[in-house]
């Protein structure tokens, strides 16, 4: 249990650092930003207490927010992802799997994992850009941002997972 906690903490710090120092500066074609820290929310094991997921997600979002001067923006969006993740994972796990199944491409299969993470990513990006813009004035730009950021992050996450699988 405590080993798991330390692993989480390690992942937390790495994800934060990567997001803040590298990925926050990327704006591909002025629309797509990779939000790799959502990977942190996707990767919770089956059977992790739901309140723990929520608190972790909130903390992760807040950490990123503090560094990018947007308090409440990423934390709000990531907390929603943390709420959905355990329910969505239940739908994807194979029938005879263990209680503490790891949520990764190795255990779920690449296809299922890709679908799971793309749904969570889409929810995150949708809420993130809605909260950022706060209006629907420029809704085409907003849709492009959501779609392209989701796609870019998905590519990154699948790349990481395919490396981990080997």
């Amino acid at each position, binding site marked *: 249990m405590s080993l798991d906690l330390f692993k989480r903490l390690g992942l937390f710090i790495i994800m934060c650092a990567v997001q803040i120092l590298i990925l926050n500066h990327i704006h591909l074609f002025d629309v797509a930003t990779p939000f790799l820290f959502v990977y942190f929310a996707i990767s919770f094991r089956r059977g992790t207490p739901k*309140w723990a997921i*929520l*608190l972790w997600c909130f903390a992760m979002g807040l950490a990123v927010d*503090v560094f990018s001067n947007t*308090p*409440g923006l990423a*934390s709000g969006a990531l*907390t929603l992802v943390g709420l959905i993740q355990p329910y969505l994972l239940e739908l994807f796990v194979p029938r005879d799997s263990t209680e503490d199944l790891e949520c990764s491409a190795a255990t779920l299969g690449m296809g299922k994992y890709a679908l799971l993470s793309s749904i969570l990513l889409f929810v995150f990006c949708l809420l993130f850009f809605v909260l950022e813009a706060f209006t629907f004035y420029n809704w085409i730009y907003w849709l492009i941002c959501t779609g392209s950021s989701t796609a870019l992050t998905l590519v990154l996450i699948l790349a990481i997972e395919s490396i981990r699988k080997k």
Partner: protein
Amino acid sequence: MYNLLDFLRKYHHWFLFLLLEALSVVMLLSYNSYQGNAWLSSANRIAGKVYEVESGVTSFFSLTRVNEELTLRNFYLERQVDQLRRLYTDITNDTTVEERNELRFLSQYKLIPAKVVANTINKPDNLITINKGKDDGVEVDMGVACGNGVVGVVYLVSDHYAVVIPALNSSASRISCAIRNRNYFGYLHWTGGDPQTAYIEDIPRHAKFKKGEWVVTSGYSSIFPQGILVGQIEKVFNSSDGLSYKLQVRLSTDFSCLRDVVVISDKSAIERTRLLEAARDSIKAKSN
């Protein structure tokens, strides 16, 4: 009662979710109006330190270009000073007046050099973090400029860092500026997109000026002294209500490679604000 407790136990994570979301929304809505909240921004100690290390590494790679730019600018300014000095002595036959004026001008302002540690240019509302704070004499609402021109206004201050609202902030930045040598003034306004292009509104219809003329700070607000470079007029439009001109300006500051800035601390500003407040109060008292 038991049913209620059971209900709470079963769905406690939903309540936690609502609580955290509410917290997020409160933070989101309160950030723009609540000035004292420096620790939830990149002005806090840990974030500032991390960004300082990062910018130390990245600034190393842009040093050559920055150096070139500064050398050019320095050369240009030296020539200008030289020319002006010659002109002045030709007219007045007095070689010391200018130095005296310069000293008087400089003694009015205190310049605090600072380094940019975090900077964005691609959001609609960009913010800059600098590595000088309350302990170095930086206060809220001081002006910030760099070698090439105006940068922005200090917004949040912690002990060692400060967050600046740059001209590239579409919702909060309004810098009062004027066309050089013509004294028509308006407000600088950025609408997002290109970080080199901004607009000046409220230039009166009877104003006479040409494309390519320089725009400088007006000195009417107590934030910037008069004459800091803002940019060059590129295009002229009619404003949406047709009552004034709207100028498209090419900003002289390159926000994408901003490293060294100075915070301008105006000693006379306190006196001026106090006077202005007193004037407002007396007007209010009269109208009542």
